[in-house]
């Protein structure tokens, strides 16, 4: 029995119509239906932050958001942070500059979270950065460089 519903999602400024079951998460809609695989599936249980995207400008976990709940909201993923061919976002540049990753799997979530962290005004000190980035786990343990990157990107963004 199929139970598909048609929804319109605003992703990175473009509207996409797709038919999904109500149980499909925003994360699976992005990755499996829209081929936007920059957003990563880590734990799929809201514990690692790899799936972080922005909904109406606020960072959320796409693995615990139903796609249907994102209808009528504006969703930004790592692919929407800077236009293809354009300069990287200053947080992306800072992650490269400060070598803020090893394997890179958590990086899109880290970057989306860091952009929001800085915009929220929660990057005032290393201690504050660690607290407000705690929802993004890095199994490689690149935390010292991630903190450096966020600290430096905050200076550029302000």
């Amino acid at each position, binding site marked *: 029995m199929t139970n598909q519903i048609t929804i319109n999602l605003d992703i990175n400024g473009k509207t996409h119509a797709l038919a999904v079951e109500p149980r499909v998460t925003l994360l699976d809609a992005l990755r499996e239906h829209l081929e936007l695989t920059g957003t990563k599936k880590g734990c799929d249980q809201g514990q690692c932050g790899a799936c*972080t995207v922005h909904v109406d400008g*606020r960072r959320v976990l796409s693995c615990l958001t139903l796609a249907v709940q994102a209808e009528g909201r504006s969703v930004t993923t790592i692919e929407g942070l800077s236009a293809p061919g354009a300069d990287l976002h200053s947080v992306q540049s800072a992650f490269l500059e400060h070598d803020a990753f090893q394997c890179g799997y958590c990086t899109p979530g880290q970057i989306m979270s860091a952009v929001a962290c800085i915009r929220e005004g929660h990057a005032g000190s290393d201690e504050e950065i660690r*607290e407000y980035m*705690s*929802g993004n786990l890095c199994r490689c343990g690149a935390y010292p460089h991630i903190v450096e990157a966020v600290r430096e990107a905050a200076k550029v963004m302000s």
Partner: protein
Amino acid sequence: MRDFSYLRANSFEEASSAAAMPATMLLAGGTTLIDLAKCGVTNPERLVDITHLDGFDAVTVDAEGASIGALAKMSRVAADPSILENFPAVSEALWQAASAQIRNMATIGGNLLQRTRCAYFRDPASFPACNKRVPGSGCSAMEGVNRGHAVLGTSQACIATYPGDLAAALVAFDAIVHLGGRKVAIDDFFLLPGATPHQEHAIQPGEMITAITIPASVAARHSTYLKVRDRQSYEFAAASAAVGIELEADRETIRDIRIGLGGVATKPWRARAVENALRGKVLEPDIVKSASRLAVEGAIAHGGNHYKIELAPRVVERAILKSGALA
């Protein structure tokens, strides 16, 4: 995750009548519901999305106290200047809970209704026995890995910890849970497990939390939330305490003290024995230390969680001294 049908409620009345239907759950931030649906703990046939309802997310504070709409997000309430000023323990409990992403999603009503983190409850495939999931099926935690489990308010059927931080602060300050027109004191809203651990709240089918109110008090203005945990951030409490103090004009005698505990009990726990031992006494470290021992009166450990009986009074003591410095 099993599929379900989805209904977007456009009015309170629509949400209420839908919520009374069998196998139906209300969906707000989804941070508990979707998680537990993936674990196979909850298997709703119908979800009613209430996030599009208007008028249930206001946060107001006046001379009477605070009113927080059930759909207000945790992050917004934590940062609200009037909550920070009048109920600092509430703000601190909120921003020390979960992660920034989850606080942007989760609502205040949903926060209260979050389920236990008991690993046996959360894993029905590996552990079919759980009195909370399947009444009468047994409990794997009693003899299992129970480091995080409760030492207060337990029963022979269940030792699962209530994991929330916010509710520990709310129970200290006598908050009221509004279920539409019905009002329930927060201490009565949460039920002890007893022989029926599957019944966790006083909420009835068709009811939904519409708001939380917290009466204004001097103690609440001079309050703090101390959370001790295995890692510094993004972790549930091993033990936590929300404490508010009002001193007499002499600046040393305790006129009023409120203490709520988190991480150690099966429901948000009011430490009334400690409060009663300290009301009228001088706020002095030795007096506070001995009174704080009363926080774990009647506590029962099951092996792995024995350390909480030592930890909880120390957390209470430190929180009292910290909030005493604010009073």
